[in-house]
């Protein structure tokens, strides 16, 4: 079983974000970086499939500057076998179609049986890449998967729908799966695996070799939502709260008049 896992390095969401000088993306200064949360589910699922089948080879792919190799090493420590780094200093300027194009170009002649991605990235959140890859490769794509099993090349997956509904999907490999929260609990890499990961194959390819798709959309502007009147939290014992509320209603509204 040949498996590809596509991951993205994203800023930690606790960071204090600022808009960059061009006004089209966040500034990269003072950010802490980590693996996109949904991609961690993808890595974990790939490793679980390999463990279940007791055979397989997992390639982890990531697009970005050399810095993303740190995040790739975590995927290797979790159990991926080799790393495919697509070197690109400006990956944040690429639109989802271009990213998907690069992945599809990389995967096209390699005969992957399964491709796992996160259902979306925590920073851009387009949710398009996985399914675009499936389309470009002519493979079935299943999105927002929260339950996954495979038996004799047949996948049984559960997708999460709105309102808590689940859809059961059955399909044959090869296929593309995008992973949602709840699919699994990503493992904490063990020390021997961290050490082994340092010696695993990690090959960088310049993005120019794989980027054959033109952009069809561009980001015009990125900005924080305007601050509007905030909420007001009243504190104190119930009788005081009632008094305060009545006062506010009288002063600022006409409901009591």
């Amino acid at each position, binding site marked *: 079983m040949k498996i590809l896992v596509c991951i993205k390095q994203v800023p*930690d969401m*606790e*960071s*204090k974000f600022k808009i960059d000088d061009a006004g089209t993306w966040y500034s990269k200064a*003072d*950010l*802490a*970086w*980590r693996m996109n949360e949904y991609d961690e589910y993808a890595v974990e699922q790939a490793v679980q499939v390999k463990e279940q089948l007791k055979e397989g080879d997992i390639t982890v792919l990531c697009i970005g500057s050399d810095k993303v190799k740190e995040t790739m090493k975590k995927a290797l420590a979790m159990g991926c076998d080799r790393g495919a780094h697509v070197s690109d200093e400006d990956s944040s300027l690429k639109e989802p179609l271009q990213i998907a194009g690069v992945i599809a170009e990389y995967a096209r002649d390699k005969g992957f049986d399964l491709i796992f991605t996160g259902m979306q990235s925590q920073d851009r959140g387009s949710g398009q890449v996985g399914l675009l890859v499936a389309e470009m490769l002519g493979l079935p794509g299943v999105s927002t998967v929260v339950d996954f099993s495979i038996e004799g090349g047949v996948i049984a997956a559960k997708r999460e729908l709105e309102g808590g509904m689940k859809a059961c999907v059955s399909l044959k490999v090869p296929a593309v799966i995008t992973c949602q929260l709840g699919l699994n*609990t990503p*493992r*904490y*890499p*063990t*020390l*021997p695996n*961290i*050490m082994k990961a340092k010696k695993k194959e990690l090959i960088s390819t310049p993005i120019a070799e794989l980027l054959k798709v033109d952009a069809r959309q561009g980001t015009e502007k990125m900005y924080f939502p305007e601050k509007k009147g905030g909420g007001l939290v009243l504190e104190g014992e119930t009788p005081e709260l009632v008094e305060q509320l009545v006062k506010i209603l009288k002063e600022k509204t006409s409901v009591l008049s």
Partner: protein
Amino acid sequence: MEFTREIYWNVGHGASTLIPMYLLTIVALALLVKGIWQRVQVYRTGLPLVRNDQVATRLLRVVDNVLLQKKVVQVAWPGMLHGLFFWGFGLLFIGTVLIVIQADFTDLLFDVKFLTGTFYKLFSIVLDIAGLLCILMLGGLLVRRYFFPPEGLETKSDDAVMHGMLLAILITGFIIEGARMAVTELGTPLAPWSPVGLVVAKAVSPIGENGLLALHKVTWWVHLLLVMVFFYLIPATKFRHILTTSANYFFSDLGPKGKLVNLDLEDEDKETFGASSLKELTWKDIFDGDACTQCKRCQDRCPAYNTDKPLSPMKLVREITRIAHDDPEGNMIELCDKDAIWSCTTCRACQEICPAAIEHVGKIIELRRSMVLMEGEFPGEEVMTAMEATEVNGNPLGMGYAERGDWAEDLGIKTLAQDSEVDVLYFVGCYGSFDKRNIKVAKSFVKLCQAAGVKVGILGKEEKCCGEPMRKMGNEYLYQTLAMENIEMIKAYDVAKIVTSCPHCYNTLNKDYRDLGLETEVVTYTVFLKELIDSGRLRISGGELSCTYHDSCYLGRHNDIYDPPRELLKLAGAAISEMDKNRAEGFCCSAGGGRILAEEKLGERINVKRVNMAVETGAEVLVSNCPFCLTMFEDGVKGAEAEDKLQPRDIAEILAERLG
């Protein structure tokens, strides 16, 4: 008359006595050596560990704690019973050795007798009283164990054997003496020099001389046989503690107190880390359980045990040794119970009180290391989340690393990146930097430094968690990663002194970081502030304050800093109402050992229990010196519904309000 007695009176000093006696002795000693040798073979299955350097220091520990019984009598009841019994039995042993020397060497070979005259009188009365003392003390211990057993005391067949054997040896000794005196000494001026023997003599004298001679002879041989069986029983029963506990003082950890073994993570030949099986522990880890006397002092003080968690330090240590003897291939982690292993707060109460020099905490950390480093396993998902947060942002709270110095923005202090010419580097720690409640403490400390004219610098976003909670949870890899980054940063700025307001940071920087190359002086804020006051640079004015003081485990037991914080509080006008459990006996807040990262899911809440102890003192303020303690107490006063009665505060806050 000459004051002496005939050795071997009535039993004879000929070959018919000496040959069976010495044959028995040789057999008994041979069995003793064989028993010891068999156990030594088991100790030798452990990994090597050097514990025979600094011989003089080690011997001094043996003198202090074996001969002087210092640790044993620290708990007066029942420690004093053991102490007095030990000293009494020691005198009896010396007395017996003197008899052997005279009868079988000096007298036999050179016709020299020294057990005569005044020396004999003293010899006689001292041994007599020592024997009585032993019986009384043993009786006291027996009554305690069998009639009024304290909670948690385990009584096994070993205990019955030991009590019975010792009592039988002592009582037969007095019967021999009484029978002899009834025939030879009654009515002589020598008799009063054996007061206990005299009472026995008077009691047995009615049976007449022939009866007495027979009684004496039979009892003499019974007594000898009992002593020989006693020798044989030493390695086979808890009697072994006579040898193992004594030896364990020689093999003590000579410090720095509580410093963990630094794992070599770069060692490429190493395939496993931590301990999940016997072969990954040292010989000392196996030996410790044999030195344990099950006195349960550790268990009595363990915050986990006392809040219904599955950990007893005593049972864990003994289980490891049981595995070594009975089940050497067993899975150490399963057998010791994961929940027990995770429950430890590394508060060191067990190790500090142990009268057998056992090292409990290191073993628990080794087991945790195996779970974390080899299995990626934690006590709960929240702990894994905290570990991952620390990997990304350098703090377990998951706050953005770039905001680490934001708390100090308006205080007029700079980061070392802005200005590295400072008197001291304040290593703030994660809670002082990010936690709203503890930021107040950090600000108070800076205010105090500024009042004393001390120029303080911080690392700001260049500081990372010191790694202590991660290390104590077993995550040595993450700890070393953080430590190396911090050390590199600190070294680059070449500061003269580091001050910490978190005892966990203090202990880690001052002890653990030494293994990784940090040489800078590190002081804790309580000592630092005390020095500023003593030198007149900082003035504090007194005001009324009714408080109780909580010794954090890492300032207290781990570093023996008990007085400076109390002196600071007194200078601030505080009247301290001590809790029952204070200083070395202080009760943990629950957050040590990395437990600050974990939810407390088992048993009672430790912090609530501690808060209730503080409430009992009637004090209005609970003063502590540690961000973890403060956090746990802020939560604990809610759990104990004591928010109106008790206010948790840090010592720096108290002082900053009382600047003179």
